């Protein structure tokens, strides 16, 4: 795994990215000159306190937000000044999202929630394949209200990976889960990374989760304060909660 990562191309390149939110007369600097590369097949854990800029960084990577200053490249494409339509296409074709609160459509079953994406993707796997990959094959005809939190999150992961995205962006995917289901979700994420080689960025408050990452990036006050490779990856089951 470590070898594959060494020869990998960068998927994302961020150069001196700044993001300022202005509400009335107050300007909040969420990111202050972040420069960062993310490589193919890499699992990166983003750590940091509340307000350190993790989510802002993730949103900019995912095309949900644009930087105030600096450059963002996805492979050769410059996303810095992309239009709304370009960003929509970018998300549709290349990015998978997983959120803390799952964001499933309650009126669609697990299979249909995944199909929501496969219907508009270019070269998707079938919903069944995606759900099998996260271990939910037997429960695919259940509605969200009939699934546990961990199961709902795994449906969200299946929905995110079904389009075979190049990057998977996860914002606190285990934040609302207990240890047992949290481990199941992390295992699903690692399995996807292993099988599909999807670059995965994972925001968490649980510092122990960094042990499953190839690389750990720590943010504080809108700046990167640490960016180091994790030489001793462990399996999700060994993460303490």
């Amino acid at each position: 795994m470590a070898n594959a990562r060494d020869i990998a191309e960068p998927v994302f390149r961020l150069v001196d990215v700044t993001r300022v939110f202005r509400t009335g007369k107050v300007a909040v600097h969420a990111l202050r000159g972040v420069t960062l590369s993310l490589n193919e097949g890499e699992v990166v854990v983003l750590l940091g306190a509340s307000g350190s800029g993790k989510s802002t960084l993730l949103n900019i990577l995912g095309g949900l937000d644009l930087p105030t200053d600096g450059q963002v490249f996805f492979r050769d494409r410059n996303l810095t000044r992309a239009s709304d339509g370009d960003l929509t296409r970018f998300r549709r074709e290349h990015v998978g999202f997983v959120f803390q609160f799952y964001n499933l459509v309650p009126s669609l079953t697990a299979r249909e929630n995944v199909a929501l994406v496969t219907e508009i993707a270019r070269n998707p796997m079938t919903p069944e394949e995606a759900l099998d990959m996260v271990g939910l094959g037997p429960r695919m005809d259940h509605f969200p209200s009939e699934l546990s939190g961990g199961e709902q999150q795994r449906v969200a992961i299946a929905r995110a990976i079904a389009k075979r995205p190049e990057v998977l962006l996860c914002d606190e995917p285990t934040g609302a889960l207990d240890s047992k289901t949290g481990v199941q979700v992390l295992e699903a994420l690692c399995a996807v990374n292993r099988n599909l080689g999807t670059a995965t960025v994972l925001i968490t408050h649980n510092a122990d989760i960094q042990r499953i990452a190839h690389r750990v990036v720590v943010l504080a006050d809108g700046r990167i304060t640490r960016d180091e490779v994790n030489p001793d990856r462990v399996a999700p089951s060994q993460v303490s909660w």
Partner: protein
Amino acid sequence: MVRVLDRKLLRDLRQIWAQTLAIALVLGCGIMVMVAAYGTQRSLVETQAAYYDRHRFADLFVAATRVPVTRLAELADIDHVAQVDGRISFHAVLDIDGMQAPAVGQVLSLAADAGQGLNVPLLRHGRLPDPDRLDEVALNESFAQAHDLVPGSRFRAVLNGQLRELQVTGWLLSPEFIYTMAPGTIMPDDRRFGLIWMNEAAAAAAMDMQGAVNDIALRLMRGADARAVIAQVDSVLDPFGGTGAHGRDRQTSHAFLDSELTQLDALARFLPPVFLVVAAFLVNMVLGRLIAMERAQIGLMRALGYRRAEIGLHYLKLAGMIGLLGVGLGWGGGLLLREGMLLLYVEFFRFPFLIRDPALGAMGLSGALALAAVLAGAARAVAAAIRLPPAEAMSPPAPPSFGRGRIDRAIAALRLRQTSMMILRSVLRWPGRAAITLLGVSTSVGVLVASYFLFDAIDVVRDRVFQQGNRQHVTLTLARDAPDSVLLDALTLPGVTSVQGGYALPVRLVNGHRSRQTAVIAQFEGAELAQVMDDEQGVITLSDRGLVLPELVARHLRISAGDSVQLDLLVPPRDTLTLPVTAIIRQGMGSEAHIAAPALFAAMRVAPRVNQIHLRIDPQQMPALQARIKSLPTVAGFADWEELRAQFDASLQEGMLTMVMIYTLIGVLIAIGVVYNAARIQLSERSHELASLRVLGFTRAEVGFVLIGEMMLLTLLAVPLGWVMGYAFAQGMVDAISTDVVQLPFVISRRTYALAALVVVGASLAAVLLVRRRLDRVDLVSALKARD
């Protein structure tokens, strides 16, 4: 504490101003229609009553050939008769400068002490005729205005065969002629028909009626039995050619005014409550949602220590403010609309004054109903919210559960796109809410169908009356009966190409103790110009022996086809005949019975006679014909059907079109209000879900489809239901609006159905697109962060 809550109230209202306005407008529309319709109707009824009262409008009317003035005392002696007034009345052809066609005047004698009598005219301009001058006359205001005949102007009239020049002294209004219509026509026409008040001596001299009258009015005491009085009056007047006394119901002006008021009353009873109920439902639904979304805030306030009652009151105040805004808009709009409608009616009906009734009952009722709807909607949601323990209220509600019923499996089998599935499941998951949207939209379709249907009905009436029923260009009414050889003379008039005779005979139709005073129209064979028409079957061929009765009369007399009916002739030879009824028809206007001329005269055992002549002419020769008619002493009336049709259309433009426009506007507003609010609720409840779709890479258009699709699906489903409602509404309108004077045919064209559907679908689309624009403004990141 309370001051902060009140500040929150105002800020909340400002925050949701668009929805507040939409709710208030829908509510206001319902109230507005109710206040306007009742206000107009009440105002006209009160004006009519006051006018009748102040000017002593009579209760009974009777025409006779010649009644010596000395015999009037006998009428005054009849029990329960309060007052008797007699006068001379006859028709005359008029020749007025600047008008090629002959006009028709009804000449009425004016006693020196007219102010003490019945049906007292009101002087509006100029002065009354001098009792010593034989050539002075006063005219009804509308006729004088139509011809610019000011005091001092002169015109010519053929009085009893003699051409006379008359001078105008003033303009009058009369409670007898609020609505004026020439004999033999169907529409008021202020240019062609006028009233001429002439002092008594002049009228008597012109008609050789010294010491006699031929037109008698009676006022009854309160609580009098009109039927008993009529019977006695008829027996007194029988030797003098009395044609049968009748009440106000057969007095032309009153009958038409009453018919109009009945229709207005029907409209007021019928549509406004529908609007108000839909508005109430809608407001109930929207407010319920609005407050359900405040759940977290309610939990917070409870956590902070507010009492349930305080929080409940706070939200009831919010609902109450929205309700009050709606009531204020509705009352204001209603009073304005009432004023507009009254102005229209004043154009049509000649009232000397107008009493404005604010319809306090309608205002109070609609206001109370509106506030009740608003508060009930709010109370339900508030009660649910404050019952929850604060901690539970503050946490997001559990995701709505969707089950797999049989319907769901059927839908799943359709293999639709997932976004389509979302639409269908949402409809099935909240069937009550979908039903209210459906109901609201279908009501607007129904209201539009019932409004546009009036045009279809009028089209049929126009086609029956003008295209098929009366193909003649001109109808002449004769001053007195003539032998049918006069038809040959008529052929020699300028430009005449064909001629048909007609004979109108005043009768009382009797079946057992039920009777009805009307006229029988005898049709002569030949040119087939004037024909009997049935609304559904078209031209009816008269049988050679029996009567054809209009449905309304037949129903009143409880007679069906095949029965016999007794005819009391109200003019010489004043016999009683018994004739079979061969057919019953629906006719758009009038309550006359029809018979073939040979059948009538065989039964009467008299030689054929005519008092109407229908002419088809070479249109080029119309001026020559008109000029000729002006000098013919035998002609008392002249109707130009081309003109009548123009009048018919023009009067519709004024009245009905305005009415239909108003109802259309309100129907559209209801549709927009329903769909806009439903879409706003959707958007606020599902913004999270819709934002997720955007994050997943769905385009704005694709996400918009979920929102628009559901509303348009419901709108399309509502259309057929609305058609059914419209059919029922229209049926109700036909029953409510039809009077003795006008019977609406019940026909709804495809054009009406299509137009109603098109307008509502368009309005719904516009409303949902308005909401869709907000979807573009949803901030993806924050929508995903916020849990409801």
